[in-house]
């Protein structure tokens, strides 16, 4: 990289935030080119074999394990100078972890950030897919704590590898059967197991059931990164993603009848419950996707304004 | 010359046991038996114990493997097979279809009721379940097995009842050849009467019967021919009256 370009990057970094990283001589995207290459190769393999967990050389990152290091490595490997990044944690751009991760990405690349999916190209997330429809411009990068969908039924690594290799998911089906027998319904919430491209079963961890249908035949690319477990997997655009369920047990998303967001009044977005304090008693609901909520509220208040979502 | 259409034709049948567990000695059970049986004939085997009567039946049924000789059976289809040389699987098949065997001992079937046992015997003979069940019911009634016992596990029934079940199972769906080894030994007079009646009916249906009976009365009543055996051979064969005369004379002497 020539000096003037580096200077531009550093200038931009200084303009955007005051992170001390801006003063250091870092490679674009923090990672060295060899690291990026290895991660990109893992990503390409993952995209070529949808749903297959590709092992990769997960590095020690400036975030601790369990805080999104996997998603971060993917983001830093794919990011380019023309990207715009959005980072959310549980749908919120302003959560501490989202802010930290976004700052790290921005300061090591100098690219702009946004909270609006419409304006973004890279979206790194923990636990949610943004409410706005995403398309070919977007790459969704999901932080994954446990990439192995079969972990609940099998511990042995070799046996797990065999089960995936032979598409022998009988024990997963048994656990779904037992779940339904014991509880009347299949009770998994986040990390619902899905069959990708008719071949591999993935853990959709960490998104809620609400977001699972968004993956099916999506227009956007989804990349899943597990830093601690050292695995990357992918759901390419226009790929079948079917939640595992019995033919006669429809896959259901979380719905609380009558619940509405207290901020924007929406009952069509994914809502989370805010527990009440000891003084005012009952809790209330708000949209999980804070940015979407804000825009939805604005539209309701000023319907004449151009619709930006 | 026209060869009569024998159901069973034995030639030179011998059976030699080699007892390896006792210094390898030989025991000759049959020393060359010839016998022909026509359809509808009831041939009774007579002779003192050890004469080879049961051994002969078992050699035909292949419970014993004959040492030499031939046992030619005419099948329902008309073709003939030598039972001494068919494969085990073929023999198992023939036992189910063409040959019936009723011994004193009920095969180990502890938890089935009489109706079930006899019905299954019919099904294995090729009858459909419904017909077999009906025939089984008829047979059991005929042999005086009360209906209330039809679902009782056979293991708790008396010796006489078990023997009659055996007979019903062995005679359901008349086979080509029926081998009987003391089939009424444990029956009281009334039940014996019913059993002998049933057996007698079979010969009138064309079944060839080869039977070992302990008592002379039964032989007199059923047999169209008596074969007297001694020391593993046929000593005499002929008209029942004639043979029985000889027998009883021999006893008096």
């Amino acid at each position, binding site marked *: 990289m020539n000096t003037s370009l580096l200077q531009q990057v550093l200038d931009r970094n200084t303009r955007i935030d005051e992170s001390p990283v801006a003063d250091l001589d870092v490679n674009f995207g923090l990672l060295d080119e060899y690291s990026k290459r290895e991660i990109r190769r893992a990503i390409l393999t993952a995209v070529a074999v949808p749903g297959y967990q590709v092992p990769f050389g997960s590095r020690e990152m400036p975030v601790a394990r369990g805080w999104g290091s996997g998603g971060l490595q993917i983001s830093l490997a794919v990011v380019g100078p023309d990207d715009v990044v959005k980072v959310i944690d549980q749908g919120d751009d302003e959560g501490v972890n989202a802010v930290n991760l976004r700052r790290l990405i921005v300061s090591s690349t100098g690219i702009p950030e946004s909270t609006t999916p419409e304006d973004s190209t890279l979206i790194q997330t923990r636990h949610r897919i943004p409410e706005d429809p995403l398309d070919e411009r977007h790459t969704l990068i999901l932080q994954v704590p446990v990439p192995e969908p079969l972990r609940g039924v099998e511990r042995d690594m070799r046996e797990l590898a*065999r089960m995936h*290799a*032979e598409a*022998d*998911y*009988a*024990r997963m*089906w*048994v656990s779904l*059967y*037992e779940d*339904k*027998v*014991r509880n009347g319904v299949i009770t998994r919430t986040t990390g619902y197991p899905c069959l990708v491209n008719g071949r591999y079963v993935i853990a959709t961890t960490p998104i809620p059931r609400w977001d699972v249908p968004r993956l099916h035949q999506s227009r956007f690319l989804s990349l899943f990164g597990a830093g601690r477990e050292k695995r990357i997997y992918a759901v390419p655009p226009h790929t079948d993603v079917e939640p595992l369920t*019995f*033919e*006669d*047990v429809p896959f259901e998303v979380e719905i609380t009848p009558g619940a509405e967001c207290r901020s924007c009044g929406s009952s069509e977005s994914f809502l989370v419950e805010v527990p009440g304090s000891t003084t005012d008693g009952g809790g209330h609901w708000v949209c999980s996707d804070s940015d979407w909520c804000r825009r939805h509220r604005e539209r309701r208040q000023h319907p004449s304004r151009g619709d930006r979502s | 010359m026209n060869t009569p259409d024998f159901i069973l034709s034995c030639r030179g049948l011998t059976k030699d*046991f*080699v*007892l*390896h*567990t006792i210094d390898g000695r030989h025991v000759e059970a049959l020393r060359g038996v010839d016998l022909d049986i026509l359809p509808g004939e009831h041939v009774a085997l007579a002779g003192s114990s050890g004469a080879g009567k049961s051994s002969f039946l*078992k050699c035909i049924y*292949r*419970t*014993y*493997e004959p040492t030499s000789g031939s046992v030619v059976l005419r099948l329902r289809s008309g073709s003939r097979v030598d039972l001494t040389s068919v494969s*085990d*699987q*073929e*023999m*198992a*098949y023939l036992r189910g279809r063409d040959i019936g065997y009723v011994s004193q001992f009920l095969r*180990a079937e*502890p*938890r*089935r009721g009489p109706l079930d046992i006899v019905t*299954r015997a019919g099904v294995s003979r090729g009858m459909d379940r419904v017909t077999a069940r009906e025939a089984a019911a008829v047979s059991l009634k005929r042999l005086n097995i009360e209906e209330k016992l039809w679902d009782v596990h056979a293991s708790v029934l008396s010796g006489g009842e078990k023997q009659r079940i055996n007979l019903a199972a062995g005679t359901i769906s008349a086979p080509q050849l029926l081998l009987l080894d003391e089939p009424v030994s444990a029956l009281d007079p009334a039940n014996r009467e019913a059993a002998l009646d049933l057996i007698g009916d079979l010969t009138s249906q064309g079944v060839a019967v080869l039977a070992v009976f302990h008592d002379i009365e039964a032989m007199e009543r059923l047999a169209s021919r008596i074969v007297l055996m001694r020391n593993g051979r046929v000593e005499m064969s002929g008209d029942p009256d004639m043979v029985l005369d000889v027998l009883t004379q021999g006893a008096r002497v």
Partner: protein
Amino acid sequence: MNSEWALKVSSLGKIHGVPDLRALEDTGPDVGTAKSSLTGAIVAAWDVGFEVTPGEALGVIGESGSGKSTVMRCIAGDQSSTTGEVFLRSLDHGRTNVLDLDPSARRRLRVADLSVVYQDPAEGLRLNVTAGGNIAEALTAAGWRHFGRIRDRAAELLERTEVPLSRMDDLVGTFSGGMRQRVQLAKALANEPPVVLLDEPTTGLDASVAAGVLDLIRNLLEETGVAAVVVSHDFAVIEMLTTRCVVMNHGHIVEAGLTDRLLEDPHHPYSQRLVGAARA
């Protein structure tokens, strides 16, 4: 008569240790041992062959160490064999040697072509899964995806094997030995395999319980028309369940024949000893 075998085994052999054929020279029933002093290897089984037709149950009798369990495990795929051929009619019309298949292909056979009922039910079941769930495992492996139908079929099988339906949702680990064996039978028959191997199916059960399980097996064999191989050291079991059998000693088949013939007119000296001891 259906002379088309469902299972054919030919020249099956298993040598533990150096696969040197010299071991055959000083092992076998005539020598009286399965261990070779020439090579140190153990000839667990050699030159074993038989055929089983649908609806037929073949017995494999032998004392412990006879090689009967080895034969069973080699056919099942639980153990690798040294030599031999195993054919299943349901696989490529019996033209492919099952022993040549790779492990994952052999595992697939265990879904619907070949089932095994083990002496220890824990080997064929998952104790931390319900009775219905164990059967569901077999069904889902075969592609069943309808919860209601899976449950109906599981209930049907459990009823057939006389497991109280009230226990369908209980963990198998809470069942008695006899009840576990019944669940194992239900699971083994779930996908209607043409061939079933039973290894000492009632050994280890209390006598009264064993009698019930034996009856059940007899009924199931008759009604399903499977081709069965019953491995046992117990003559009562062989007599109850089989029409033909083979006698094994020190890894070899010493005699074969109709079951009642073998029990009443054994020829081979070892068979005579075995039958004599059983009858005593």
